[in-house]
Structure formats: C-alpha cells, structure tokens
C-alpha cells in the first residue's frame, strides 16, 4: 500500500496537510514523490506554500501591549487578581 503512487487528485487532496507536515511519514513521502514528477501539482504546491507563508507572516509583529502585560503582572503580584 505504501508503494502505491498518488494521482494528481489524491496528491492535491493531501497537499495542504503535506505542507504543514501533518501526514504520516508514508504519505509525506508519497506526496513528495508525486510533486517531484508533476509540474502542475508542484506549481499548485508553490501557490499553497506562498499562501501559508503570507498568513504566517501577517501577525508576526502583533504583541500584547506593554501596559496590559504590566497591569496583569501587578495584579498577580498583589495576590488578588480579578
């Protein structure tokens, strides 16, 4: 079973989970094998990878405001938060 080749529809169905490294090792390598041999699916993989990278980047700079963190710390130190 683990030797079975994926067709394009099967590979595309697994593509996002492949990029998130959420497949079994078997399936990770089956998708990789398919992508190495199929230009169309490889391009689709670039599309999904660029999409996921843009999401990952979008909120990277967002931090809990310093005064909120300070207020929370202070309340915890007082021993009676909330």
């Amino acid at each position, binding site marked *: 079973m683990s030797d079975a080749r994926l067709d394009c529809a099967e590979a595309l169905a697994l593509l*996002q*989970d492949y990029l*998130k490294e*959420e497949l079994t090792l078997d399936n990770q390598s089956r998708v990789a094998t398919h992508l190495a041999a199929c230009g169309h699916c490889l*391009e*689709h993989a*670039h*599309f*999904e*990878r*660029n*999409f*996921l*990278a*843009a*999401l*990952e*980047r*979008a*909120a990277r*700079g*967002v*931090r*809990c*405001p310093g005064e*909120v*963190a300070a*207020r*929370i*710390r202070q*309340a*915890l*130190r007082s021993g009676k*938060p*909330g």
Partner: protein
Amino acid sequence: MSSAPPAESAFERDVLPHLDLMYRVALRMTGEAANAEDLVQDTVFKAFRAWDRFHQGTNARGWLLTILRNTFINDYRRRRRAPALVDIDVAEPHRLIHEHGGSHSDGEFFHALVDDRILAAIEALPEEFREVVVLSDIEGLGYAQIAETLEVPVGTVKSRLSRARRQLQARLLDYAIEAGIVRPGQVS
C-alpha cells in the same frame, strides 16, 4: 538594605510567556483591541484561580487557549461588532487562476498583500473557521493540539481548515484584484 526582587512564581513563569499568543488569538476572535485586552486579562486571572487544577509539566499553552476560548464564548462572543460572514461555497482559487492562464498561479501575489488585509480577511471568516486558521496557520499549532483545544476530532479540524483556507484564498484573490496586484483579465 536592598531587598531582592520578588521571586517569579511558577504561575508567572509558565503563563506569562504566552501573553502575546493569547493577545493575538483574542484580537482575531473579538475583532477589537479593547476587548482583546480584557479577554487576555480575564483569561490570565481565571487561570490563576484554577492554577491548582493545572498539571505541572503539561502544556500550559493548550490549557490557556482552552480557558481563553471558553471565556470568549461565554462573555465576549455577543459583543463582536460585525457578524461574521456565513460559510459560502467558493471555487477553488488556484484552479480558477490556472484555468485562465493567469501568470499568478504560483501564488507570489500573496506576498504583495499588506498584513492588515490578510488579518481583516481572517476576521471576516465564520467563527469556527477563524479559530482553526488562527491556531494553525497564524500560531503554528499542530492539528492534534488544535483538536484538543477545541474538543473536536482531528478530522473536523482538517475539514474546517480546508474550507477556511479556500474561502480565505478567494477573498485574498479579490483583494489582490482590487489592489491591482492581479489583473482581472488574468483570472476571469
């Protein structure tokens, strides 16, 4: 005689490193900074009161996210200013671009979108899609961890993610066309 700074408690050591994560998730769920700040504070205080029920050495991040989510559902959900859009069926965006011979089918255009546009598109997703995208694709949690936080099967996480990402791609493609990054002739 100078006194040493108060020793950091185990609670502070385990919980405070997750403030930024909690804030980002709270911001996407509530849609407003003021509510997100309150939600983070409520979450930390609830966690503080429940600290004796937390199993030391286990995953504080997941525990905090579960508290945050329950607090959101109980106290904040109805305060959201705009109702999220309903689940809609959209065509698969990559196929749409590809079939019309677009030169954007490698998805490079996603990188030309400003962050605020991407975050606004996430906020417009239905809540159950929004939360999986935020946890998986913004915060980088694994599917199993998300399933545990949301108390749903991993298969549910996967199917929600798949639908959420497709909707998001369709919306971002629309933005890219509006912004002139992708020319409409190359898509439709």
